[in-house]
């Protein structure tokens, strides 16, 4: 790997179907080395199928996929020594303890020297895990922690995390975010699949949104905000009318209170009218990812169950 301009993951027009169900229908995804990339989509959009193809667990029907410069199907063994993976649904061997599983996964991933015992211990303490308990006795959140610690304790250059915080409590979610930030500092690449938007918003350098097995949008959050509307809430001295203004949506006027969404191009004109009516209080905020997401998915519901 040479510097930040190479891509850790490069997927073009990826297709995969299971019988008559089409899971992926021409998906594109580019993850640059050293970035934290959020991979967003509702349930059944094809996130897990994409990850399983990248891991060489599923074969692709069409398109191209490359991972760390290699072919995920052909070079699976060599590539897997350089990545760590946390599945969305963590199932563990019920008779093994958490500590044993962490060590087992770490040593299966690479040479034993790569697992730093101090780092392992620090992570176990940070996530407050009891490593001597049998996996059968762990809650969903604790199973998730075992998989996360095993991945974070490794020296892999790429982390693939499939909905990693499902099941974690808010405290542990905060710990997880700190850990991902640390990994970014250390120059590791992270692919973070999620449907929790606040998580992507807090962590991701760039975002890819998929729907129905196709890429809906990709870019930095700043780039995406160009395409979107800000939300304006205002308390005015006199009632105001925004009728006939292009670029104003979902306007609600109750007496002297105004709530609306405004295209960036129309923002100046709206503010001019508001000032004319006398502004008492005003908030104007850029869209959250939640709102971006709703815009993509509220009109058309995604098809059911594209997961295998």
């Amino acid at each position, binding site marked *: 790997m040479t510097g930040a301009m190479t891509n850790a993951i490069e997927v073009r027009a990826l297709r995969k179907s299971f019988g008559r169900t089409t899971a992926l229908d021409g998906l594109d995804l580019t993850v640059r080395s050293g970035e934290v990339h959020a991979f967003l989509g509702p349930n059944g959009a094809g996130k897990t199928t994409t990850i399983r193809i990248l891991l060489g667990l*599923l074969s692709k029907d069409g398109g191209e996929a490359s991972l760390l410069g290699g072919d995920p199907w052909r070079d699976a063994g060599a590539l*897997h020594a350089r990545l760590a*993976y946390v599945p969305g*649904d963590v199932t563990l061997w019920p008779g093994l303890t958490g500590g044993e599983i962490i*060590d*087992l996964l770490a040593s299966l991933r690479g040479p034993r020297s790569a697992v730093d015992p101090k780092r392992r211990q620090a992570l176990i303490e940070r996530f407050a895990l009891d*490593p001597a*308990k049998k996996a059968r006795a762990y809650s969903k959140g604790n199973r998730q922690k075992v998989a996360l610690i095993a991945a974070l304790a490794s020296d892999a250059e790429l982390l693939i995390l499939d909905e990693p915080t499902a099941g974690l409590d808010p405290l542990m979610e905060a710990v997880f975010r700190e850990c991902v930030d640390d990994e970014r500092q250390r120059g590791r690449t992270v692919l973070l699949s999620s449907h929790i938007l606040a998580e992507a918003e807090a962590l991701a350098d760039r975002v890819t949104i998929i729907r129905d097995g196709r890429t809906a949008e990709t870019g930095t959050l700043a780039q995406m905000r160009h395409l979107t509307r800000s939300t304006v809430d205002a308390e005015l001295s006199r009632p105001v009318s925004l009728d006939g203004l292009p670029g104003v949506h979902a306007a609600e006027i109750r007496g002297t209170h105004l709530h609306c969404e405004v295209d960036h191009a129309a923002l100046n004109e709206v503010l001019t009218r508001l000032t004319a009516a006398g502004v008492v209080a005003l908030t104007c905020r850029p869209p959250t990812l939640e709102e971006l997401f709703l815009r993509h998915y509220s009109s058309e519901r995604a098809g059911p169950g594209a997961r295998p």
Partner: protein
Amino acid sequence: MTAFAGTGALARLAFRRDRIMLPAWVYVITALIASNSYSLNKLYPSAAARAALAGSGGRNPALVFLYGRLSGDSLGAVSAWRYGVWAAIFASLMSVFLVIRHTRADEEAGRLELVGSAAVGRLAALTAALLVAVAATVALTVLLVAALVFLGLPAAGSAAFALAITTCSLAFAAVAALAAQLAAGARPARGIAIGVLGAAYLLRAVGDASGAGGPSWLTWLSPLGWTEFIRPYSENRWQLLALPLATAAAAVAGAYALAVLRDHGAGLLPDRPGRAAASAWLRGPRYLPLGLAWRLQRGTLYGWAAGFAFTFAASGAAAKGIGSLLGGSAQLRTAFTRLGGQAGITDAYLAAIMSLAGLAAAAYATSAVLRLRAEETGDRAEPLLAAATGRVGWGLSHVAVAVFGTALLLAAAGVAAGLGYGLRTGSAGTEVARLLGAALAQLPASLAVAGAAVLLFGLRPAASVAGAWTVLGAVVVIALFGQVLRLSGWLLDLSPFTHVPKLPGAAVTAPPLLWLGLAALALTAAGLTALRRRDIG
């Protein structure tokens, strides 16, 4: 809300989930018995022919050990002798799988938790599973009686025969219900119930084969022995049906008592904390995770090994009294002397129990290979295959445990039988060596059956579990019933065990063993190659 609330809904759900498997079990058991009675009738049409079969077979110690004692020479009595005990075993296995599947397996998978949060009583799932088992045995009884009467057998005897089989099946449904409360997982629960079934078979076999003066009362301790003592088509001892029914009632009462006491998801023994770090052995070689495969499978193997050692020590010990079964018939004695005299009879008996060891070891090998499929569908293969472990390495790790375990079990069978027989005759050294060789001669055939499981797992993963057990079932049927039914040669040749020399006694021929070994190797290689090419999950 009572403890039984929701039982009806759960039973309907169970019927819905088993709508294919359950009729298949009932149909196959009925068809096996009906078609076998039909062909017995064709093969031995006259009373004289049956009397000859009864006279030789009914006194042959090896056959008495395998099938039980004969109580008459009518067509019905011969059918009941030949298939009664084994039909009861198959019907009991049906009940065990059924009950565990709807109780402990669902609980372990977390499905019962989802159901239990609804308006469902604490005993509902257990009761629903038992209801389904009762329905299945009632259906089996009705079908069996209808089929046997249709074949022209007496109605009363047919009813006694069918009930002898199905009440035994009910008793094991109850044993499974109890096991599901004792063990914390579906796998150990099935192990306990099938272990009890194996012990019942052993008690009956040793009791029957021990002859006059031996511990023949052992048969009375076994539910499978009761099916024999009911003596359908000769005495029809209806009152003995009370024994399996009372056993069932007692086991169900025990299961209910435990189900009320224990926590959801827990067994009777609490989990102890384990190591906080993995041993070097568990970390295993990275490309061939043997440590993990061994760790996952060792408990099951220990259980099988204990069962093998005990079973074959007892069977070997029973070999000494074997001649006394021949009784005073001078004619029979002459016939057997021509076959090799006392030594010949004993060897034939020992060879029969060694081929039984081979079949049982094939069952172990199949289950050990199918562990791969369980790991895959349980999503536990995913983290390994996403690490540097390749598919072939992962597959081989479990296949290696299966091969090692099969060899270990057969060696245990040989040594135990050799000690059991040798210590009573004062020639332990020679017998152990002789029987160890005889047991290990089964290894290639057992592994060939396991090879078929590997191939199915690679090629048709979704059908691999049902497919592999069907292969094993066909091999068992050919081995146990192929000769007496005079099946055509090519059909017999399909089973690997047809080609194994009948040791001890017969001459050792290396080529068939070599070919079987190569077949096992080729099947495994083909299966692992197919595994490399398919989708996982």
